[in-house]
């Protein structure tokens, strides 16, 4: 029995203790490296392919061409792997039993939850911003190298689109984290995420097309990534409504994520471990 440890520090454990621990947890998982690596590779690969596909077209093709959106649209794939990463952060703890060890180490659940969501939010957002800028620069380099119209961060709306794309994908991953908190199973959380983000739009296409503009993937491509307004205000041709403004779109996604996290968080606090 070592005596040194017997003298516990004054006070009690705080959210900072848990934050340090959660950071270490994220950094020491192989799934972090795999999902992060996959997100980078898939995101940039699709970005490169999309940009490359826009080269050497007839001049009229570039009428209304949006080079910023073009360089970012490949990140839809990153939205998928990001969602998997977000869910795994929490469901991995449930499937392995680590969550019980966490709750035993820091039984005040609001503190544990705050640290978990905080670390996930900061890490995911920072990563998604880096990825978004990387995609933009890669895309523009390919477009300008191939003689197609290209943009710079100084182009109207470009910086806004790049920054918001990073935040938006991070919010999608956090929504998935919320599903993970609710469902506690990796398979179920990923299924819910894919269902909401990728399957729901297909279904809605058939039943209520105007409402498609409230669906995350549509907000992302039409409101967030876009820097040109193709249509005037009000209902456009064929009854298709104009996309939401970038600000409203981002706010809506933040609300989706907040609802998922709030419901998941409430269950996390109330439920048996």
């Amino acid at each position: 029995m070592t005596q040194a440890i017997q003298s516990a520090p004054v006070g009690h454990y705080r959210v900072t203790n848990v934050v340090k621990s959660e950071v270490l947890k994220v950094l020491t998982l192989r799934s972090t490296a795999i999902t992060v690596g996959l997100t980078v590779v898939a995101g940039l690969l699709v970005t490169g392919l999309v940009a490359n596909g826009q080269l050497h077209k007839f001049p009229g093709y570039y009428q209304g061409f949006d080079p910023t959106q073009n360089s970012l649209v490949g990140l839809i794939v990153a939205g998928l792997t990001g969602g998997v990463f977000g869910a795994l952060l929490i469901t991995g703890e449930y499937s392995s039993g680590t969550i019980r060890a966490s709750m035993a180490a820091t039984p005040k659940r609001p503190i544990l939850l705050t640290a978990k969501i905080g670390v996930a939010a900061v890490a995911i957002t920072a990563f998604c911003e880096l990825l978004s800028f990387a995609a933009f620069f890669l895309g523009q380099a390919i477009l300008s190298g191939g003689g197609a119209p290209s943009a710079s961060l100084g182009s109207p709306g470009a910086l806004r689109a790049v920054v918001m794309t990073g935040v938006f994908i991070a919010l999608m991953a956090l929504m998935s984290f919320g599903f993970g908190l609710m469902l506690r199973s990796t398979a179920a959380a990923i299924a819910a995420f894919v269902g909401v983000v990728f399957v729901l739009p297909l279904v809605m296409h058939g039943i209520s097309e105007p409402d498609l503009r409230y669906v995350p993937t549509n907000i992302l491509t039409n409101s967030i990534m876009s820097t040109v307004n193709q249509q005037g205000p009000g209902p456009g041709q064929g009854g298709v409504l104009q996309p939401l403004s970038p600000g409203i779109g981002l706010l809506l996604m933040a609300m989706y994520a907040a609802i998922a996290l709030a419901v998941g968080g409430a269950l996390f606090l109330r439920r048996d471990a």
Partner: protein
Amino acid sequence: MITAHSLTKRYGASTAVDNLTFEVPPGMVTGFLGPNGSGKSTTMRMIMGLDYPDSGSTLIGGKPYPELTWPLREVGGLLEAKAFHPARTARNHLRWMALTNDIPLRRVDEVLDQVGLSSVANRRAGKFSLGMGQRLGIAATLLGDPGVLLFDEPVNGLDPEGIRWVRHFLRGLAAEGRTVFVSSHLISEMAMTADRLVVIGRGRLIAETSVSDFVARSGGGTVKLVTPDLVAFTSALTAIGGNVSDGDGGSLTVEGLTSPQIGEVAAQGGLRIYELTPIIASLEDAFMELTQDEVEYRPSTMAGAAAAGAKER
């Protein structure tokens, strides 16, 4: 010291833990004994603040678990065989735990050494055998050098060497003055490890007593006698009040007489004894006897058993 007071937990219509009251004192190993599904794990999870009771409370050193200022420095718990992420190394598993409670990171290597896992500290824990995983779980409980330790079925799936190691380890912790609470459905294991027992069946308290009292309470005290003079012995022993029945292979089972008394009878009657073995009722017998009657236990009798346990302390 762990205390549970009127602890009750229901899952839908079934009651997993039913008005359970007991104490786990420091300085000894207290066994938590009951058949599978009797509510041992649920009780331990409630003590650790993982599951919420429907009514009643549990305290550790007078405080509910969530009120502990540095939980890992006060309580160590091994509640499931593999409560670690398979992709994380043993050392990293202990490091994140240490960070939560501001425990110096040198403790990580100390406890790994203590359980004999130093050489595999940087291997992913998912590759560990059951025994190694169990050792890692035990290392985690020791991280904060806590005064209270809980182990749920710690020897499950271990080989004989591992079982011996755990047994020795638990006794060592208790000898250092710590509170050690160990659940098991293996009665023989508890007989060797525990000083005291909290016995439950279907979530209800059956007995809270010392191991020796628990065994004594179930009666016992029979003697096995192997002899060629079966008929003569039977009549002679019955004559002085013995209750004799035929055992297997030319032996007799004698109740109500001691070995010396039987020896005297043999000497006086010139009867031959090949073997004379006192059969002490095993903990298992006592357990089976008590749990078989379990359904007949009424709340009042349970309170009686609890009170009897309290007096013995």
